[in-house]
């Protein structure tokens, strides 16, 4: 690690530029770019959410209600693509952008201009992808996994493939930036094993991103050449195999689901110690558990394909490898609980969301374990049980962690406290309605209701109606969140202190609230007692 530092060359040491274009489109500031990412993510969350509302409206009753089946298929496909690549991933990158330099005592990201490019690619990529909804032939409708041959029938394939290429370029550059920042920009004395768990989780996530986004790019490139240039990768008549696509896609796809949950683990590992007023239990075990999960993510991909007709040996291998993941995940859940044990706990909104995460994510983990069993999966595959499972890990998992992080760091970003009352209203409505929304889907799946259909047997009517009601109310509840954020940023009279939370430790709490435009231009002196994990010697 290098401590050599050269004088800052640019002309504005203090304060942001006045011009809108200069500040937001030409930025090299990690805080501004982080804000851009977060606003973009919230926008995409509501676009993807509106697709979900339409889906739940169509499924409110049996029979066709509102739309043509083909449009319904476009909605399920676009909902997934927008939420995964537009809402969840950019939110984590935004949080990483904002917080990693503050947490490791760096003045900015290692490669600030590339950082800006990583962000600005995204709005254009989504413009390209969402525009297909308005083109003749409509948007992609073969599911977000884009399995051939179905996906090859869509006229929008080229647009979606190029949009995915752009998103991949953005993710890879973002990940390279985060790795270089963490490995090269830490303040003197910020050893690797003194870093906050959030920073560790992002370091490992960034590695996963660089390893698998190019593989997705390769897979969709083969789709593109199969459709437009007459290659035969996925055509058995020419010696190819559509299952080959599934292998390549899920070699990306499974690490991808951990890309969407490991930073969430990091966030929860920051919030729980703060509000339990105890250092995290088993710091090193937490770090190694994340690394283990990341390693295992590369050798479990075929558990998404148990029903495709894999050789028996492969099914057994992937079943056991998948179940192994529950060991490091269990370590994490137990360590969060042990962190709270005997702590002097308070229950502000971020802590409430973190607690809901621990409980509800664990439910998603258990249903995942059920899906990992090959014989059981033959029954569950492609049913609403799968839908319930991944929404528990992605909505009550990843999304709840992002919301928790937003409440936790909003006072540091804006300098104002958010309204605790409305935060709690948001929390209780979210946690109730999200369960009304997704829990019945387990029963629907076990009873045999398939995913991705606009109409269903009347036997599934009651649970679907309950689920839709939960969905509408959960969606409406998220508007409260927007209100809380806007109020906190622009109208709140209650100023935040630098420390914000009584039990908060770490470098990010040593800078003023709101964090000034430039921080740590001179490397901070690290005091181990001030670090979240500096005094941990286990």
């Amino acid at each position, binding site marked *: 690690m*290098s401590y*050599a*530092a*050269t*004088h*800052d*060359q*640019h002309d504005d040491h203090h304060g942001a530029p006045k011009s809108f274009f*200069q500040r937001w*489109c*030409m930025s*090299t500031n990690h805080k501004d770019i982080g804000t851009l990412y977060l606003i973009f993510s919230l926008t995409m969350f509501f676009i993807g959410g509106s697709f979900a509302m339409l889906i739940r409206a169509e499924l409110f009753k049996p029979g066709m209600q509102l739309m043509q089946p083909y449009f319904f298929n476009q909605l399920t496909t676009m909902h997934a693509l927008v939420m995964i690549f537009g809402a969840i991933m950019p939110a984590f990158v935004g949080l990483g952008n904002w917080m990693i330099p503050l947490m490791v005592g760096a003045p900015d990201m*290692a*490669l*600030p*201009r*590339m950082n*800006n*490019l990583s962000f*600005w*690619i995204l*709005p254009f990529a989504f*413009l*390209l992808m969402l525009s297909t909804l308005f083109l003749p032939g409509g948007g992609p409708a073969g599911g977000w996994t884009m399995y051939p041959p179905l996906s090859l029938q869509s006229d929008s394939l*080229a647009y979606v493939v*190029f*949009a995915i290429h752009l998103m991949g370029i953005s993710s*890879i550059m973002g990940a*390279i930036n985060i*790795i*270089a920042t963490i490995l*090269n920009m830490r303040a003197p004395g910020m050893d690797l094993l003194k870093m906050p768990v959030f920073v560790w989780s992002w370091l490992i996530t960034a590695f996963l991103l*660089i*390893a*698998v*986004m*190019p*593989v997705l790019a*390769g*897979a969709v*490139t*083969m789709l593109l*050449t199969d459709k*437009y240039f*007459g*290659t*035969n*990768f996925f*055509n*058995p*008549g*020419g*010696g*190819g*195999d559509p299952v*080959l696509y599934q292998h390549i896609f899920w*070699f990306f796809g499974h690490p991808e689901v951990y890309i969407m949950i490991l930073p969430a683990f990091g966030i929860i590992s920051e919030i729980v110690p703060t509000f339990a007023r105890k250092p995290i239990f088993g710091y090193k075990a937490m770090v190694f558990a994340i690394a283990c999960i990341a390693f295992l993510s590369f050798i479990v991909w075929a558990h998404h394909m148990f029903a495709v*007709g894999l050789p028996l040996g492969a099914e057994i291998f992937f079943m056991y490898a998948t179940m192994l993941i529950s060991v490091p995940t269990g370590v994490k859940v137990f360590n969060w609980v042990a962190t709270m044990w005997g702590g002097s706990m308070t229950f502000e909104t971020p802590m409430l969301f973190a607690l809901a995460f621990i409980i509800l994510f664990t439910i998603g983990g258990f249903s995942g374990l059920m899906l990992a069993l090959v014989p059981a999966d033959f029954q569950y595959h492609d049913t609403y049980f799968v839908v319930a499972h991944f929404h528990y890990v992605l909505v009550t998992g990843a999304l709840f962690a992002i919301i928790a992080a937003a409440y936790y760091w909003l006072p540091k970003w804006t300098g104002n406290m958010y309204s605790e009352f409305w935060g709690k209203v948001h929390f209780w409505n979210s946690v109730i309605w999200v369960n009304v929304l997704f829990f019945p889907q387990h029963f629907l799946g076990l009873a045999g209701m398939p995913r991705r259909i606009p109409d269903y047997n009347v036997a599934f009517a009651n649970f679907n109606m309950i689920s839709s009601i939960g969905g509408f109310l959960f969606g409406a509840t998220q508007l409260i969140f927007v209100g809380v954020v806007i109020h906190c940023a622009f109208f709140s009279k209650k100023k935040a202190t630098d420390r914000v939370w009584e039990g908060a430790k770490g470098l990010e709490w040593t800078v003023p609230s709101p964090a000034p435009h430039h921080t740590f*231009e*001179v490397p901070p002196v690290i005091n181990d007692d001030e670090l979240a994990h500096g005094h941990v010697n286990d």
Partner: protein
Amino acid sequence: MGQQHDAYFVPARSTWPFVAAVVMFITVFGAAHWLNAEPGDAGFGKTVLTVGVIGVLGMFFGWFRSVINESLGGNYNHQVDTSFRMGMMWFIFSEVMFFGAFFGALFYIRMFSVPWLGGHGHGVLTHEFLWSDYTAAWGANGGNGPEQAGGAFRTVPAWGLPLLNTLILLTSSVTVTIAHHALRAGHRGRILLFLGLTVLLGATFLYFQAHEYMEAYKELNLTLHSGVYGSTFFLLTGFHGLHVTLGTIMLAVIWLRVLKGHFNKEHHFGFEAVAWYWHFVDVVWLGLFMFVYIL
């Protein structure tokens, strides 16, 4: 390694990232339109694509020019240098994974899908019901699948042009290393000679590969449509060729920068990054030579 001061370096604001995002969007938007155009109606997409590509080239030129000027201005300290190095290394790793997807496809097709179609092991029923007369084989005798996609073809023999190209790329790796040693020793003439040789070898490789493609299309009937053999052959060698093209252009730019005296004994990351990239392209070729041509 720069002077020791009391602050980190954060670069000034720049329009280039935003410009880059815009021109990349124009490029892929044009390409997607072109691909979806009705026959004879490709004009709009083509025009947009051309504008986009010109924009991308201009963007690279402008962005790199500003970075080079900052570097020559002595703005980049040791820490920035390390960030650049890490960036390049992880970028090359991502490229390795990109090629990994295509190599993985090749291995899967040769190890599983083609034998299964021929009735081996797991896929026996597909064979029985659909193509019971297909015998699994690779190369000219069945590499285009049970339906003989693209018609009968012959493969490119490994020990002709591909061997020559292997020798060319291996030699170019040696010459670029000699140029690097010359740079560290400060022998300007020798750098220019050996770096120039590397560029020429890269260009020769590309010439031979273009020749090989033309021969494949005209005489061997080995085309992109030749079943999965043609798919893997052309996508693997094609993406590699694209990388050699980029590498050759990058080497040529570095040659011009040496001519202009941009590098010194300690400070020549631009040179090293391109040399790493060139070695990476070389290693990928060895994999191709082994698994696409020989085996």
